[in-house]
């Protein structure tokens, strides 16, 4: 299991910071857990990153789960109408 821990604020800069670790994690082929516990602010860039991860997981067959995605992440996803895409496509806890 590879864990990617997201920071408190997910803006374009922090999204950019997460791309390489995520690419490496998918390349490794191990199940991936994206930990969202610390996230307090997230916008379109962050949702896009999560959506990209979900899509990559689906296409590569690498198991992906989002943990701690209840607070800010869930609220932003609901506002954007992406709850089903993000939380019903994989294993969200």
């Amino acid at each position, binding site marked *: 299991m590879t864990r990617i821990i997201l920071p408190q*604020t*997910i*803006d*374009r*800069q922090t*999204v*950019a910071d997460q*791309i390489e670790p*995520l*690419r490496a994690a*998918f390349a490794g082929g191990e199940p991936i857990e994206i930990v969202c516990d610390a996230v*307090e*602010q*997230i*916008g*379109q*860039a962050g*949702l*896009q*990153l999560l*959506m*990209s*991860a979900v*899509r*990559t997981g689906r*296409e*590569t067959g690498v198991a992906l789960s989002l943990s701690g995605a209840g*607070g*800010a992440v869930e*609220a*932003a996803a*609901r*506002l*954007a*109408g*992406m*709850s*089903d*895409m993000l939380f019903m496509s994989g294993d969200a806890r």
Partner: protein
Amino acid sequence: MKLEEIQDIFFQECDEGLGQAEAGLLALQGGAQDDETVNTVFRAVHSIKGGSGAFGFERLQAYTHHFETLLDQLREGEHALTPGLIGLLLAAFDMLADHVAAARGDQPTPDDAGMLQRLQETASGAGAAIEVVDDTGLAAALDFDLDGLLGDLDTGEDPFADWERDTAEDEHIDATRLFVRPREGALAHGGEPLLLIRELVDMGGIIRAVDASAVPTIDRFDATGAYLGWHVDVPATVARSDIEEIFEFVADDCLLEFKGNAAPVVEAIVEDGAIAEVEPAIEPAPLTNVLPFVAPAEPAKADMAPAELPASATQSMTATIRVDLEKLDRLINLVGELVITQAMLAQRLHNSGLAQIEELNDLDHLTRELQDSAMSIRAQPIRSVFSRVPRIIREVTASTGKEVRLEVEGEATELDKTVVERIGEPLTHLIRNAIDHGLESPEERLAAGKSAEGRIRLTAEHRSGRIVICVSDDGRGIDRPRVLAKAIERGLVAPEARLSDEDIDNLIFSPGFSTAATVSNISGRGVGMDVVRRNVQALGGRITIASTPGKGTTFTLALPLTLAILDGMIVTVGAETYVIPLTHIIESVQPEPEDIKYIGANQPMISVRGSWLPVQSVANQFAIPGAQVDPAKAVLIVVESEAAGQAVLMVDEICDQRQVVIKSLETNYRQVEGLAGATILGDGRVALILDVEGVTTVRAPDRALRRA
């Protein structure tokens, strides 16, 4: 927006839905097994059902309900995708297309009882009995009182329970439908587009669907990209200006489209599960959870060229807007006027010795680019015509027992909307003809060492400023001895005539010509191929044949990209100037006196490559004084027309060859026999465009005489 306009949009979206459904079904037929393809077909049919209910098309609604039931079971995995089932779905699709055409008023309502029975039987009794909804409420739907509509449908025994449930979610029927897609700049400047969405939700907006189809996988993901788009319904009570105000400061960075009233018609195209229909009741998220709109901005990449954007991001920015065709034609007309005015200006400056002004060249280029761009707006991919072909093949193969594999290439090739609309009929006949006459039966093919399955190939491409469409088959080829014998028998050709292969092939375009031993309802009535050629020529196009015995036949249609401009030869007759469309011109000649002979006192004939052709004086046709009357001193233009074959037009002089903007005589004056329109030349003079077909028909020559 008027009801008729909304209904027009519904039918346009029906066409799009039918296209998606057929593409999906053909993909299934081709071996695709993925859930998304089945889902795409289901959603297309589902959307048509929803809209048909709102507009009171009960038969269409009832039919789609049963079709959709089977598709729903299919996507739930209750049926295996067998060839038999796919065949049924394709047949059901064809009938759906008929139902849509009937709802549009284009044809009678099809008798769908048999198909409904097959659908229900296949659905293993899951479908309800065939019922037609009481239309007491549907008439009221014309004013979009959906609550009333749903109330009338809510009888407990209503066969459209699914539909009712789905559309009941449309709370904001009286709403403005928007599409919002932030561009990269919306993020690049430190902005947060979700706050814009939040504003819309605060206004009572409902997110109908989110388009995430452009979000790439992580290997292609770019943190600076903007990949999302939202379909939002905002209550109609919200002023448009209030909506626009939200986007006032991000106008350049965010696409905002008003898509009209949100009648319960269809949902957006769904691709790869990436456009999600959303639960209507979105609870506003706490603002604190969304990043502040203003944030420390890094240097904006405002100068980034589109080519530098991630491919998916540029795709995500592709959007469409529906425009009234009348407005578009007015724009094109005005651009035509601009082209003429620019030419006149250039001519005047040239006459004043100022032709080398640099800005004049720039203006010329800009004008041409503007004209090209304006014309391209009317351009449509030929896909809409090609998409009809699979159905034609299904129908013809069903009645002939032949096996056909279709190959299509160049569906995205674009040409003028009018040409697209008019080319469908000739193309349909060519396809039918290719299967019925061109391809052999499976037994004959096997005996000839070919595969049992015949091949029809349909291609389109741009070539030298024209679109070239080819319909090819790998069948038996044209039986020339038989064609010639039939033509002689019917008096179309003199018995002693010696014709080239090309001439013989072209005989199949003669009115009433057919070599079919028996008349079928597919082709063989001899009323088709001449109409095909006439229709193609009416579009300013040409059709040619290339056939090899035993190997097949190719019909090639060369068509103009547009009907608004044409390539013409500028000629003078007396003091008048005329334009002869180049599509009709074969060659121009300046004859020697010995090449001219007379029939009687007034009908000159000229020998052109072994054939004697009648010379027709344009001056005589239009009573123009002062024109050249001696063919040996005039310029003779050899033209070809449907009615008269080859003929020769006598003019005084050839001045130029150029593209001209066509002005309708009918609209601006009245129809004049022998004239196809007018144009304005650079010197400001009006030049009339000859209708070669009309001019040469005045004295249609005797083909047998010419051929002898």
